Each structure stands twice: as structure tokens, then as C-alpha cells.
């Protein structure tokens, strides 16, 4: 994306095609049409959340009707839901899972990504292919033996089976970090080696500071993935309510805890806020990280 911006703008050499007169009116029409279409698309993506929000602030009675606009704005619905379900407990569990997993991922994935991106060794390509294979594997494929093992260790019903793997291996993070590190010129690493740095020092002093945007993006994705995770918490903590994460708990709200639409939507809206906040503060990291997963495959 940055490459596009640095590309030279349209050259003067292409100017001679000005004479095509109808271009002006047609150009304006195209401009209006594309921008109208863009606006419609933007609204299309935004309206579902808008409806969720509007429903969340309706009164209990109105939320059952087909009204689109709240007659009165019940802001305290957002506070009231904390009485209807132990949301703080779920929030705490979600944060425990996401923060510890992200911390563990950083400890385990940065060195591995460095070895895959900047060190030469036999078997490196095979190792990278295994990382990709692990990344593509549906989590359900390995669920049976893993559940069996965690269960015989007596750790099902806790968050341990969800968090522990991140301290050793997270395929997507290793993949993404490696892609970022590849863009750091090898000469920086070589210079550090000439200066007598060990590989560890080169990683900590040269690569990590230079790869900060990449590390930030990877940490964001890891945090969001765990925050949004449903299958993992359902598998390991489904039976133990005290260990539920927000995502898992949310799936049961409409029906079990909360019957009213306004409360259900208030909780739904609350669970989406962290992602929105993270995005506002780190928009560039997100876009960069997303782009890296696809373009530079």
C-alpha cells in the first residue's frame, strides 16, 4: 500500500489525451455514481450495528415492537445488564485469556519468526511449510486427542488449555511476524553480527525495534482472535460457568440469562467495543497486518 503512494503520479507525457471532450461530464457522472455507491456500501455495513444500538436503548416493552427508533433513550440499559449476568466475571476471564495468550505468543513467536526469517539453516523451508499447515488446520481436527489429554491432566474446565499453547507455538503469529521480518534488510542483521552481536542481541537490539509495527499488528490480531474465540472456550469451559469468556457467555444470553432484546443487544454492543477501540488507536497496524497476510503470501 505504501508502495502505491510512492509511485510517481500520472506523468505529463500522458496529458495529450486531454482533447477527449466528453470526458468531463462523463467524469463527473462517474464520480457521483461511484461515491454514491461507496456511501451506500458504507451505510450497508454500518446499519446493522446502528439497529443494535437503537434497540439496546429502547424500553423493555418497545424492544418487542417493530419500532426502529427509541421513544425514550434508556441509557442505563447498558448498566442494567451487569445485574442480569456476571459480566465482570466473564470480562475478567476474557481478559485473562487474551492478555496471557498474547504475552505468551510474543515470548514464543518472536524468536521462532526470527529463525525462520533471518537465520540460514537446513530444514528451514520444511519448518515454514509446517507452520503454514498448522495455520490452515481446522481446530476441530485435533480437538479429540487434545481434549482427552487435558482432561486426563484434570485441566478441562479451566482456561489453561486455551492459554498454554500460546507460550510454545502459535502458527499464525509466527507466520505474520516472519513476513514482517523478511522486509527488514539483511544488511542490518549482518552489520550487527560484524559488530560482534550474538544472534540473540541482534534480535533484541536490531530486529525487535525495527519490527515494532509488525509485532504490534501481530499482538493485536492475537488479542482479537482470542477475545473472539468461541470454539476453544466452548470446548474446554462449556460446563463450568465461572470460567466462561464474554464470547461464550454472549452466545447463551438470548434465551438463558436475558429474554429482552434490548438487554441482549446492549451486551452484544458492549462486546464489540474493544475491537472498535483497538481499531481506532491502531488503524495502521490493522491494515498493514491484514495486507501482509495476503499479498506477500
Amino acid at each position: 500500500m505504501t508502495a502505491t503512494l510512492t509511485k510517481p503520479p500520472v506523468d505529463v507525457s500522458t496529458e495529450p489525451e486531454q482533447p477527449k471532450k466528453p470526458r468531463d461530464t462523463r467524469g463527473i457522472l462517474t464520480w457521483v455514481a461511484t461515491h454514491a455507491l461507496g456511501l451506500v456500501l458504507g451505510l450497508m455495513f454500518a446499519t446493522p450495528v446502528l439497529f443494535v444500538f437503537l434497540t439496546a436503548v429502547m424500553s423493555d416493552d418497545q424492544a418487542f415492537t417493530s419500532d426502529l427508533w427509541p421513544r425514550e433513550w434508556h441509557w442505563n440499559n447498558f448498566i442494567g445488564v451487569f445485574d442480569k449476568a456476571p459480566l465482570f466475571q466473564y470480562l475478567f476471564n476474557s481478559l485473562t485469556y487474551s492478555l496471557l495468550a498474547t504475552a505468551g505468543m510474543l515470548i514464543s513467536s518472536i524468536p521462532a519468526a526470527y529463525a525462520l526469517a533471518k537465520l540460514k539453516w537446513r530444514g528451514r523451508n520444511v519448518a515454514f511449510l509446517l507452520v503454514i499447515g498448522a495455520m490452515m488446520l481446522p481446530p476441530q481436527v485435533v480437538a479429540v486427542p487434545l481434549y482427552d489429554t487435558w482432561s486426563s491432566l484434570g485441566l478441562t474446565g479451566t482456561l489453561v488449555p486455551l492459554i498454554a499453547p500460546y507460550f510454545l507455538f502459535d502458527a499464525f503469529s509466527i507466520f505474520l511476524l516472519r513476513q514482517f521480518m523478511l522486509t527488514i534488510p539483511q544488511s542490518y542483521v549482518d552489520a550487527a553480527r560484524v559488530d560482534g552481536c550474538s544472534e540473540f542481541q541482534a534480535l533484541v537490539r536490531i530486529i525487535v525495534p525495527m519490527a515494532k509495527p509488525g509485532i504490534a499488528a501481530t499482538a493485536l490480531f492475537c488479542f482479537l482472535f482470542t477475545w473472539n474465540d468461541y470454539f476453544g472456550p466452548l470446548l474446554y469451559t462449556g460446563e463450568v460457568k465461572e470460567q466462561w469468556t464474554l464470547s461464550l457467555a454472549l452466545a447463551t444470553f438470548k434465551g438463558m440469562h436475558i429474554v429482552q432484546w434490548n438487554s441482549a443487544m446492549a451486551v452484544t454492543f458492549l462486546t464489540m467495543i474493544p475491537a472498535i477501540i483497538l481499531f481506532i488507536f491502531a488503524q495502521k497496524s490493522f491494515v498493514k497486518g491484514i495486507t501482509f497476510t495476503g499479498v506477500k503470501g
Partner: protein
Amino acid sequence: MTATLGARPAPGRGRARARHRLTVLGFMTPAIIGFVLFFGYPLVATVVFSFTKYDLINAPEFAGLDNYAFMFKDPLFTKAIQNTLWFVVVLTFARTVFALGVASVIARLKSGVGLIRTLCYLPSLAPPVAATLVFFMVLRPNGGPFATVLGWFGLDSPLWFSDPSWAKPGITAIMLWISGDLMIIILAAILDVPQEQYEAAELDGAGPIRRWWHVTLPTISPVLLFGIVNSVILALQLFTQAVVAGSAGSGSADSTGSTKYLGFPDNSTLTFPVYLYTQGFRYFDMGYAAAMATVLFVISFAVTIVLVQRMRKGSAAEEGGPGA
């Protein structure tokens, strides 16, 4: 070992190599242990379990090919395969075309790009459970905003998550709403198409649509292939949206007690992973679940190979070129 050392004139070099190897090993050890524990072992164990009868309490009992044979007699297995196949075809097509379309529009915007891009991308960050409930609320046939708006035009809303023939399209709608990541990837690829190619086409008298068809599409085709493979994998793994839509649709959203409601309505949302989960972790038929997992593994492995081959080609073409 001695032969290698003997071949090298400087012994210091050999020591440096050994140290290098130790460094690599040091960096890779956690990953190697993690890979073996969480992928290597369970993959092998899944295949082994698939030949047994195992309920998690009593020791596994060898059962030969019973689990695999049962698949052919199990109507729900067929149903689950059909549902997942439906998503592989429809979701893959819809998601790729939709993301390409939205990205193409955004790429042509001159102002407001940031805002529109953000609006299109943000939903993809929402928890899948939340996204599903959002659509469940918006699309609910009695009094939902979508039905209300349709009502203004005198139209009836489909029953969506309560109708076996509309539940899968409903889930597809959710998946399109959260396809912003693919849009961003395609958008970046479109913006990376060299401007000179457009100019050359324009000189040849090609209008915007023909330029898009003859310049944009061929240039970004590797990224589109990535989008297709990525969507196929997504479709194969489809779990959360199906479970949440099914249990919310059945009116009993209880993560622990909704066994009989998974796949609601009429097993139309019973995807392959959902059925695997049901057999393994609701009925504790671990052997059968492992057999299904083995089938799923073989399929996703084949898809991964396609992706890896595409990446090999991509990186070979990029060799020596400037970094993106």
C-alpha cells in the same frame, strides 16, 4: 562427523557452525515442542482414535473400520457433508465476488476513502458470536428492522434462521458482513497495480470497465486465488455462526444443554465441524468424531497444498523484486 571436520581446514569454523546450529535450536525449541504437542501428536492420535470405540471414560477399544463404515449409513453425516459443501461453493463464490466488488468501488473513490474503508472493515473485527446475534436481531421475521423495512414496500421477510432453506443464506449474509479482511487484502492489491498499465490501456481506448476486466483482474489474480482458498478454508471450518444461529433460532441458547438444537432448523445449520463437535463432545463418541476429524484433515490438507503451491509461485516471481 570426523569426515566432515577433516574436510574443513579451519577447526574454528566448525565450532562456529555448531554454535550457529545451537542458536537456531534455541530460537526454535519452544515452537518445535509446541508443534509436536499441539499438532504432531494430536494428528497421529486422531487417526489412531478413528479406528477405536472411545467414550473418554473407558479405555479405547479397537474397532477397525467401523467408524468409517458407519459414515455411509449415517444420514446426519451425509447432511453435514452436504451443508458444508453448500458453504464451500456458495460462501466461497459470494465472499470472493463481494469482497472484490466492494474493494473495486473503494479503489475508485477520490474522497471519503478512509471513512468508507473503515465502515466496511470494522464489522470483521466483531466477535463472530456478536455478529451472528446482530443479524439474528436485524433479520428476525417478527418486528425486526429488516422485516419492517421490507414491510414498507409491502414485502414479506423470509423466516431466515427459522426456515431450513433460509438459514444457510442467513449465515452467508453474516459472513459477507464480516469479510472486511479480504476486502482490505484485495483493495491493497488493486492499489498496487502499476499505474502505467492503466495508462497503456487507456491509450488503447479502453473504458473503465474494460480496464478493470483486462488490467485489474489479471494483475490481482494471485490475490483472488488467495481469497478463494482462504474462503474455502473458512467454509470448511464454519462452526461459531452455525452453532449460535442454530441455538438462537431454536429459541434455546444454552451452550451446555442445546444438544438437540444444534443444526436447527431441520439440521440445515449442521455443518461438518458442528456435527463432529456434537458426536465427540455431546455424545462422547470420540472414535467417530476422530474419524470425521481425519476426513476433515485430508480435505483441508489438499486445500492447503493448493495455497502453498500458489505461494511458491508467488515468491519465485517476486525473487529479486522490490519488497511490497
